[in-house]
């Protein structure tokens, strides 16, 4: 018996490793524990942040549509509870693609006695995003139309929105990063867990995607990175403290964001200097202004160093010429729209 017991004891870690590998192989999703009840899911498109709380799960982003089943399977290894909220950090399909399937796996804490009369009041998770995400999703130019269940049911248009701890599992603050990656970016801060999910404003293996055509701008991007640093508290010797879940890549802290902010600012200054000296975009690209950072940040084949430099040039040129980004086509009359704050032609307001 002793020998058998010893054998099983020895076998146990091996079996556990096998099980872990099996789960990974089935889901293709890697799960990183950030805090006791907070996780980062990687591999399903953009990173997905998951807060598990007694009444359910709050997610930041939902990954790509085709990865929804795998993301959901990974979430189910964390908790069987319903997904209550999905907060989208931008309109990008690799961050919103799972809204339909993950949303359907959830339900809202709402309705009470009313739920019986309003049949779908509590159906599906509540999707929250900046107003411009909704506008871009529902623009008439979007063909085929985005399914209603993919669009945010709750939007905000101000600088800052607070969500309550009781319903969302934490005191969650949404900060609009206007005219950064796009014009609908949101930084999501979990106050009690001290975790900040940044969306694509910050990524660890890629230059920032400045989507000028959708209201993004290089100066808004730099403002957003500085805002992250304003919000985050570094721990002793600038390590740890507020933990940062980037739009893509590994778990970070504020020191990592500072390096990124420095890099983006320095590249912006280099492009701006050449632009001031009347250089064309071809000349700027030929100067290879990012070559000292390419080994780290040009690892994304879909967003090369040249594409980044071109976007910076375009964004800075728009500032000088006064060109504005293509605004989302609202589905409602213009008079009913809130004032836009997304002109790339102006530096975003310092937070």
């Amino acid at each position, binding site marked *: 018996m002793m020998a058998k017991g010893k054998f099983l004891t020895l076998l146990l870690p091996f079996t556990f490793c096998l099980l872990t590998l099996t789960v990974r192989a089935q889901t293709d999703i890697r799960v990183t524990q950030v805090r006791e009840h907070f996780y980062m899911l990687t591999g399903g498109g953009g990173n997905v942040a998951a807060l598990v709380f007694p009444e359910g799960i709050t997610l930041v982003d939902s990954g790509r549509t085709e990865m929804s089943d795998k993301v959901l399977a990974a979430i189910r290894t964390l908790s069987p509870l319903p997904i209550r909220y999905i907060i989208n950090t931008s309109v990008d399909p690799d961050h919103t693609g799972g809204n339909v399937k993950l949303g359907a796996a959830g339900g809202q804490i709402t309705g009470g006695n009313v739920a019986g009369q309003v049949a779908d009041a509590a159906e599906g998770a509540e999707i929250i995003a900046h107003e411009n995400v909704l506008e871009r999703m529902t623009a008439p130019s979007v063909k085929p139309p985005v399914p209603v269940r993919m669009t945010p049911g709750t939007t905000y248009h101000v600088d800052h929105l607070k969500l309550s701890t009781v319903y969302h599992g934490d005191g969650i603050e949404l900060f609009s990063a206007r005219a950064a990656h796009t014009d609908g970016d949101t930084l999501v801060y979990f106050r009690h867990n001290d975790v900040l999910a940044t969306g694509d404003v910050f990524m660890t293996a890629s230059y920032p995607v400045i989507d000028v055509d959708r209201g993004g701008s290089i100066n808004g991007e730099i403002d957003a990175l500085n805002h992250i640093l304003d919000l985050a508290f570094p721990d002793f010797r600038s390590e740890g403290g507020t933990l940062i879940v980037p739009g893509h890549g590994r778990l970070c802290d504020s020191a990592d964001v500072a390096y990124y902010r420095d890099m983006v600012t320095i590249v912006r*200054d280099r492009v701006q200097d050449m632009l001031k000296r009347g250089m064309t975009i071809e000349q700027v690209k030929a100067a290879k202004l990012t070559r000292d950072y390419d080994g780290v940040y040009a690892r994304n084949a879909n967003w090369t160093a040249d594409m980044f430099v071109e976007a910076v040039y375009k964004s800075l040129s728009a500032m000088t010429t006064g060109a504005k980004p293509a605004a989302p086509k609202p589905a409602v009359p213009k008079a009913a729209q809130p004032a836009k704050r997304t002109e790339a032609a102006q530096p975003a307001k310092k937070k």
Partner: protein
Amino acid sequence: MRGAALFVVHQWSMQNLNRTVIGSLLLLALWEMTGGARPASAQVDFSGEWAPRFHEDQPERVPGPELGDYLGLPINDAARLRADSWEGSMLTLPEWQCRPHGADYIWRGPSQLTIRKEEDPLTREITAFHAEWLRSLDNPVYLDGRAHPSEDALHKWGGFATGKWEGDMLTITVTHLKEGYIRRNGMPRSELATVTEHWMRHGDFLTVVTIVNDPVYLTEPFIRSTDYELDLHQHVPPYPCEMVTEIERPAGVIPHHLPGTNKDLQEFSERHGIPFEATRGGAQTAYPDYRKKLKLMPPPATTRPRIPEGQQ
């Protein structure tokens, strides 16, 4: 050993099984006595208070390196541009003020070191060493066989370090590093680098060899050795750090030099009469053969007075 082997052969020729077994046992005993079968888990105690010794590279390590001194560094063009762009006042940014040196560089810093050991209470095996300098965090080196974290895990200044015994030498693998520097004049080391350390103790002296492999900024491994001496009177005090506004500057400004505009890069060459090309570094400048090439290069056109000793 040779005698023991002959002894076994002799016994075998006698076709006597019992005697062969006895002979084999004798052979094993001799093997043990000669140290040939030293246990794989040999454990040298590195714990204690260690004072740095600066006979190697003192000017670089204590007053600090000069701007534009890239001599002996196996760097590529990307590293050169990064260092050329570096402006020292970047260190006054709040986010930079309290950062410690990275795991590879901190051995070279001018601060004392304490190493503590962690033991399994039952087996008394050393399960970890913890290295800590005046201005560092705890840098644990795990010896308990644990795996390195996934690629998605947080990177740290000290990285994630595991060690294994190679005789009396402890060989350590460090991954998950935050970005750092290989020289304190802006010469970068990327977060994708890995570091191998060899800890060796000779009586009261500790020698540590670090080997940096950086796919982003180095063309070949960068190897350095550093010495410490046991100091029973030393105690590393706490060294708190708070971020403050050291310099008032407009929001969002990051100090740096635009490419081709850093005039300070010539200083090192002119002050020491070293050809500028040589000061730009590269793997070849790390090897003795380079001295021949150096003699063929023109000296710098202008010279500057050297900074007197002690005023650097």
